[in-house]
């Protein structure tokens, strides 16, 4: 088992190299073009990795008071353009964000927040579930979960939220789940 784990680094090392097939190198009159250096900044600017608020504030900043952190507003607008998909992503982001303000000592409050997330997740599957959506709904939902709980404080709050749901039960929402 250990051996299997040890061989894994090769996989990601391979991912890092692989941009050496440019035809421009065949032209004697033109020096080979060096691809622009990949930096944290360039990855964030292109949306390949998320550019997020990393402040110590649990809720973060929500300037337009739409219930979604400003940086996640930015993430959604960069990732999605279809109206229905943007609306579904916004609903999920807002539901995730409500974890931050949930009183974890109040079981009813915890359940109500979970219900929001349950309906929002079902809505993601409605908006991204068909074959032409271009992205799996599980990926959309998982990424929105990850960008919301992106600091130590936020991730801890989320883990405590999950713990508070231990032993509970709920159903997939029946009927239309999108707001």
């Amino acid at each position, binding site marked *: *088992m250990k051996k*299997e*784990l*040890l*061989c*894994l*680094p090769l*996989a*990601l*090392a391979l*991912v*890092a190299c692989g941009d050496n097939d440019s035809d421009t190198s065949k032209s004697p009159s033109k020096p080979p073009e060096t691809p622009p250096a*990949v930096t*944290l900044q360039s*990855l964030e600017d292109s949306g390949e*990795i*998320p550019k*997020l608020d990393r402040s110590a504030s649990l809720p973060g900043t929500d300037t337009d008071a739409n219930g979604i952190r400003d940086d996640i507003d930015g993430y959604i607008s960069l990732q999605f353009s279809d109206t229905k998909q943007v609306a579904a992503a916004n609903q999920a982001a807002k539901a*995730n964000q409500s974890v931050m303000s949930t009183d974890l000592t109040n*079981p*009813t409050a915890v*359940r109500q927040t*979970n*219900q929001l*997330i*349950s*309906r929002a*997740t*079902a809505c*993601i*599957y409605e908006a991204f*579930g068909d074959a032409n959506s271009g992205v*799996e*709904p*599980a990926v959309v*939902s*998982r990424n929105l979960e*990850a*960008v919301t*709980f*992106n*600091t*130590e404080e*936020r*991730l*801890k709050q*989320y*883990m405590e939220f*999950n713990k508070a*749901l*231990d*032993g*509970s*039960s*709920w*159903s*997939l*929402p*029946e*009927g239309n789940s999108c707001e």
Partner: protein
Amino acid sequence: MNEQTRKFVSFGMALLLVAAMPIQAWAQAVETRNLCRDSGIIFAFFNGVQTTSAEAHRAMNEFRRIHGNERADGENIRYEVMYNYTNGLEDFVETFQQRVLEQEQILQGRFELALELINGGGAWWEKLGQLATTLPEIRDDFLDWYRASIVESLTSLADNPPTLNNYAEHQSRLDTWIVEGKQIVMVAHSQGNLFANSAYDYAASQIDAESLKLVHIAPATPIANGPHRLADKDLVINALRATGGVQDITDIIPPYLDRPAGLNGETDILGHGLLEIYLNPALNIGAAVVGDIENELAAVQPPEIPAEAETGFFTATLTWNGTGDVDLHVYEPGGAHVFYRTMNGQSGYLDVDNTTATGPEHYFASCEAETLQTGTYQVGIANFSRADGRTATLQIASFKDGALGTRSVTLGEPTGDAPSHMMFDVEVTEDSETGEFEVSIR
């Protein structure tokens, strides 16, 4: 047909149409609007180790995508989760920070990577891998710790298997399904199998085997109550095998580097993930798991004993842990007091009354929009007789979202027809624009 006859027939038909239109309109007006979709089959999912609530939501949605809302014979399927949290990983966030984020400058503060790294990485991790060659080593170190931690947690759980007594909401949910005559198909992943076995034993003592099925996925226990699937490279269960018994391997999966991404775009280095491995449509084991579930869905039968209770827009289910007579009382918004003396209310009904032991008692609010009252329903309980000191459990569940809340109290001396504990205020509202009803508890 001559011209005159044709005119006469046309005139007659026109008269009929004119006469029929108001009748149709009237029929539409009085047609009852059913707010519920009655489901005969419950698909109960017991989640695996270190599953966030959002991951449980995703798993259920994936199951619905695969198995649909109804069986081939038209019987409706309802999807419910019986959620459990993994204890023993309280230091997960700190360890992630120390072993991953603090090891490399470019990773600092990026806690969004935590949930994808436990599956061996993802798109963001790979992108960052372009900036530092140390990432694979950092990941493997963290995953060594993570796997050891979850194996320790699973071992501890297997040594002290969960009982339904500790999971009142799960037990009460089962009580509701059983009294409503549901066919139950349980599907469990990883540590969820320990919870599912406990739930299975409880339900099996009350309903016949043909009405209860269980499918085990990557079970963290040697005890089986139905078909199981286990991948040969499931590193979590393989590690558990060294410390105790687990079930036999059923399927071979490709090595990590050759593994196709699963439903969530990830491959899971540990070979244990539900969406990455066991429901992966590109792996044979994914098809096998789906086949097992389809077989059990096809085989499950309605209980031989007819259903005692009906599904409602919302329901209240009361149980208690021994002999005695405990009563359920519901005060409806219109003023009706529904209990064993007056079982029919204006909006709902007490359709199950138990006077001897354990319950259940069951109230359901009508699914007919014209009958269901909006406003506050006050739900309480009373020790009518012989139930002193018993623990009584009351669960409110809605048609739309499942269990809304479960509360337990210890009963005092009998109070006859007067409830001693008011347990829930249940609020039913109607959206004036859409006509949709909602229910919530306080």
